[in-house]
């Protein structure tokens, strides 16, 4: 895999949507001929898709009420001291 280090770097750039058109062309051509890199690229995209597929979870229903109950009641304390 060492000889393909540049290609792997291009894969990351591609996934970051930060790849030059020149590098993208090299990546595309290489993937057509190298099954090893094709597999590698597939695994990387699969990992990203799996992480993205973890469903978005919601905060518990009483979340806001519990935060509000924890806020310091600064104003009232100041008033009481006076």
């Amino acid at each position: 895999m060492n000889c393909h280090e540049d290609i792997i770097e291009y894969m990351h750039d591609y996934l970051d949507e930060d790849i030059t058109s020149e590098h993208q062309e090299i990546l595309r051509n290489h993937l057509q001929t190298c099954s090893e890199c094709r597999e590698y690229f597939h695994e990387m995209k699969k990992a990203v898709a799996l992480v993205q597929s973890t469903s978005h979870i919601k905060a518990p229903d009483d979340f806001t009420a519990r935060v509000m109950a924890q806020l310091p009641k600064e104003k009232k304390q100041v008033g009481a001291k006076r």
Partner: protein
Amino acid sequence: MEALIKKRINQVLKGDQNAFGEIVELYKDKVFQLCFRMLGNRHEAEDLAQEAFVRAFVNIHSFKINMKFSTWLYRIATNLCIDRLRKKKPDYHLDAEVAGTEGLNMYSQIASDTLKPEEEVASLELQESIQEEITKLPEKYRSVIVLKYIEELSLKEISDILDLPVGTVKTRIHRGREALRKQLRHF
């Protein structure tokens, strides 16, 4: 969105606590999710997400109005999670005495704490398995992966939240992605 938030912040600064409740409503799911994906535990995530909002409220005067509020809020939450993760390890000093057990140390407790069959059954769920793999990532890769792929933030925003150069964020995303590729290839 940002304009509405800034209006609410101004109300909070004038002493209107209810306006802060509206801010919590708008961001609670995002912040809870961030904490849960970082910590892998609902209870801890709830505690820290609430703590993040309380700290945001207490420090609201230090929020710079030209900044994006979500970036500031996520920074508070992410730092709390990172602190919690870093503190976890020293808790496991094997020779530390556990309060109230007089002379017993962690060695004698390990046997009963390690294998819990019900946990193995629960981890069969795909969602939970993926979360476990995320939790296995070292903290510095986990935070960038969670912010990028679960909170769907840009490299620039992640760099602002973690106070790291964009180049460092990029390198960590690459390493994190490599680790996940190896961990998730047989899923």
